[in-house]
């Protein structure tokens, strides 16, 4: 049981960075960006390949950020300059990345056998077990990135990006090129997602070309769980709620698996949960209407 909890905690912390990326597009920019399904694998692929080639695992992680930003740039250019709808732009990038990721890895599954990772290095340095080191390092990274995002979205550029998701019309009237702010937001989002992918590869000890499937739904589920638990309050609280949501999601999954749900049904379970959570506002109005007519309305 203790192992299950620790595992849920470390997975949640690592995936919370990916959730921050999803938050930037889905909530801040008001764009559903599906490229993340490809970029999370891209991060894992780049990280595993570079480490396989002998590059330092920290440096490999930093390069994941750059690779993710590049993928975000592609989606952004497709959407803003070529006027392809955002959803389709993301899908195109996602599909293209599948081939790109295979090219980077050379195989469908690239293991990191006996290669030191950031987690084993931190564990060795501090004399911690791998599980504790993973929790410590990913926790520090998640919190650090949350603070960095809080700072960034408070700056002049960050404010313009937030406003773009809110009211692009007004932003243009204030002299800001909304193409640029959208592209910047997509680059930042995908950089975080790829970074998270790199951490996942180092944690699980391999990169797999299939690992991104359903990532967007996991991100959304974590985001919504966080919002339900902490509410939509101050920006810093919302960023922290993403971390808590990602951990709770992993705990819920661990719980239903222990209760006997087959692991193959996980994605169906997650999809239904997210569909229910997203339709909650609509369901509430429908219930309210039914309630009103039951009380004697026409």
């Amino acid at each position: 049981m203790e192992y299950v909890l620790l595992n849920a905690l470390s997975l949640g912390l690592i995936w919370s960075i990916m959730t921050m990326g999803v938050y930037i597009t889905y909530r801040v920019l008001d764009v559903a960006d599906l490229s993340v399904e490809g970029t999370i694998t891209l991060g894992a692929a780049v990280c595993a390949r570079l480490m396989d080639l002998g590059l330092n695992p920290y440096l490999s992680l930093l390069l994941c950020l750059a690779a993710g930003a590049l993928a975000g740039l592609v989606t952004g250019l497709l959407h803003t300059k070529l006027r392809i709808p955002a959803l389709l732009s993301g899908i195109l990038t996602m599909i293209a990345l599948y081939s790109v990721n295979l090219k980077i890895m050379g195989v469908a599954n690239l293991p990191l056998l006996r290669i030191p990772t950031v987690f084993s290095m931190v564990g060795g340095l501090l004399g911690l077990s791998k599980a504790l080191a993973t929790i410590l390092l990913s926790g520090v990274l998640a919190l650090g990135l949350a603070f960095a995002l809080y700072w960034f979205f408070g700056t002049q550029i960050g404010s313009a990006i937030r406003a773009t998701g809110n009211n692009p019309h007004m932003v243009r009237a204030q002299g800001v090129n909304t193409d640029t702010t959208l592209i910047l937001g997509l680059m930042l989002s995908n950089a975080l997602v790829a970074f998270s992918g790199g951490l996942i590869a180092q944690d699980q000890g391999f990169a797999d070309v299939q690992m991104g499937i359903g990532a967007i739904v996991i991100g959304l589920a974590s985001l919504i769980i966080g919002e339900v638990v902490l509410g939509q309050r101050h920006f810093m609280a919302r960023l922290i709620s993403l971390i808590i949501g990602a951990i709770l999601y992993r705990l819920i999954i661990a719980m239903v698996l222990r209760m006997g749900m087959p692991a193959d049904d996980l994605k169906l379970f997650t999809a239904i949960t997210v569909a229910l959570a997203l339709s909650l506002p609509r369901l509430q109005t429908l219930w309210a209407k039914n309630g009103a007519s039951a009380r004697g309305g026409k």
Partner: protein
Amino acid sequence: MLQITGLNKIFSPGTVNERLALEDINLHLLPGDYVTLIGGNGAGKSTLLNVISGVHRQDSGSIYLDGKRIDHLPEHRRAADLGRVFQDPLMGTAADMEIQENLALAALRGKPRGLAWGVSAQDKALFHQRLAELDLDLQDRMATKVRMLSGGQRQALTLLMAILKTPKLLLLDEHTAALDPKTARKVLELSDHFISSMKLTCLMVTHNMRDAIQHGNRLIMMSQGRIILDVEGEQKKNLTVEQLVQMFSLRSGEELVNDRMMLG
């Protein structure tokens, strides 16, 4: 200040929906001109403002602002010199951001944005002082999300954002049409206040004939994409709503006028 020459705009050219929105518009505004623009639905008033601000691109003709040609620039580049308030009170502000954050976005209109903190202490002092001019007690609620404000408050805030960095031309697009009469009067008074105290050049679209006569120093009437009346000074001051209605029928060959324009 504003020099428009031979401006034409056709929507959906070559289709069954083809519509001549602007036809050979020539318009010259002097610095300090406060022009009211009136006309029926589809006369081209809003289209004219949207072509000036770069939302739409003209098919032919030129637009100069303060001697600089702007008609080839994208919308966000023209914004440096333009202050805009729209008919829809929701359109001019970012609802999920604070009053002071909205003002900070407007304070940097046309300037490069960097990694400095969005709202500085200096900004706050300035915003407090300018918000007080609105006389809506918003200066004590600067950290409130704009979503919480009424339509009138949001429109007054949008107006303040439009003039926070002095624009060369203020474009008001029926900015009081969606407000209740009392609030509309208040926002119009504020507009007059800023225009006269800052000596702004302004083009104001309105549906309301009385407002068009009472405000500004010059009145322009449009019909079917053309300017059909242009009066200023004493002649404009002495106009009556009845005369305007007559002139409209005479010059456009159409019968005015919906009740909203008559009574508004």
